[in-house]
């Protein structure tokens, strides 16, 4: 087996440099690579293009990178939880490309599956379609959307082994598997790093071939954005 373990987030992101394109897994604050985001903030690398379904909140997740003015451009589907984001966007400091959520996921998958483009009906007839090729199949119009091209994909998993195999937990899976496949270099942080042989091959969500660096994450906050409970 090929050994992928690095010591920590700082080592994992050591060669991420200004101007690069990063994919960051997670949906809202669920399943986000907390350790790597903190390390990126500490490192201060900037002019980044970030592909992530959301942009965190003001004081957590990608929101921390926005506060720190490290992000040149966000490619996301929904960014509505972040006042600083909205300020930078309306002031023109931040470029934003809004992408339908399924298109975002599928453009990641396309990269990981070696497919240069995909067809989707999402956005036909809307401003998302502007400048894009439209194609009719069986009487229905589809947009041609290109695979993403990211220097690094950074994902968070529940368990991982030293060969880079990953298992996610519950809806913290979300964008993590499709982004893990899509980076030129993929970094995985995990809550539980185990030895090879401890994970059942049938249960692995991301095969190790897609993962270049893996490390045991520390001090996960796993914040809840909308704590909602029922009365019994």
């Amino acid at each position: 087996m090929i050994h992928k373990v690095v010591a920590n987030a700082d080592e994992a992101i050591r060669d991420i440099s200004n101007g690069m394109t990063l994919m960051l897994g997670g949906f809202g604050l669920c399943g986000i690579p907390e350790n790597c985001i903190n390390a990126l903030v500490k490192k201060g690398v900037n002019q980044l293009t970030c592909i992530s379904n959301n942009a965190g909140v003001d004081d957590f997740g990608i929101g921390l990178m926005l506060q720190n003015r490290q992000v040149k451009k966000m490619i996301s589907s929904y960014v509505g939880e972040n006042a600083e984001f909205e300020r930078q966007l309306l002031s023109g400091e931040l470029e934003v490309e809004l992408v339908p959520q399924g298109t975002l996921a599928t453009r990641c998958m396309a990269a990981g599956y070696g497919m240069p483009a995909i067809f989707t009906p999402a956005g036909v007839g809307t401003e998302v379609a502007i400048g894009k090729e439209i194609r009719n199949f069986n009487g229905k119009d589809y947009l041609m959307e290109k695979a993403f091209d990211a220097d690094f994909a950074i994902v968070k998993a529940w368990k991982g082994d030293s060969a880079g195999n990953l298992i996610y937990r519950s809806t913290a899976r979300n964008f993590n598997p499709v982004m893990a496949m899509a980076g030129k270099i993929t970094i995985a942080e995990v809550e539980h790093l185990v030895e090879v042989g401890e994970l059942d091959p049938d249960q692995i969500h991301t095969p190790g071939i897609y993962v270049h660096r893996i490390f045991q994450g520390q001090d996960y906050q796993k914040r809840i954005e909308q704590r909602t409970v029922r009365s019994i």
Partner: protein
Amino acid sequence: MLDKIGIAKRIAQEIKNNYYVNLGIGIPTLVANYIPEGINVVLQSENGLLGMGPFPIDGEEDPDLINAGKQTITTLPGSSIFDSAMSFGMIRSQKVDLTILGAMEVSENGDIANWKIPGKMVKGMGGAMDLVASAKNIIVAMQHVNKAGESKLLPECSLPLTGVKCVKKIVTELAVLEIASEGGFRLLERAPGVTIDEIKKATAGKLIIEGEIPEMKI
């Protein structure tokens, strides 16, 4: 006139046995509470869950288990978890029978706008564009008029579109309407105590009224 819960209750009547349903944020989320007895339904949450259960009891929230509105939820026996690509794969391939979502505007040919107010609001479309582009059956839950008192049922949408010619039915505090194949809002039911004139006044787009219009049964 219906309140939000009334709208949710009326929409719940549209759900048929053995449906897979995607519920948007807001009023649509409330629909889950009013699904009739004996109706089997599986809720899909586009962040990657089939078989969404109720909110957890206090103290049992799991930060790894949320719905597309980022609310803590639970699973049910028979639930399954999947990634975002598969989630929208099943949406695009029309495995989801019914999508219920909110809107800022609906046009008389079934266009919907619900993701952007230029210069004012830039939250993004989330999964709405994928859902409306693919769903077999789309019901919109919304208020008939906006806070300024202007109709949200228009000849044409003024806001940037989410999708074109896709809405099938609209349930508001005043009425149930369907989009006629030739264009126009066909009035199907009045909310309790609401007159046809009130509905006419609140509808800017072409309103089609044929025969007796019954009052909703909630």
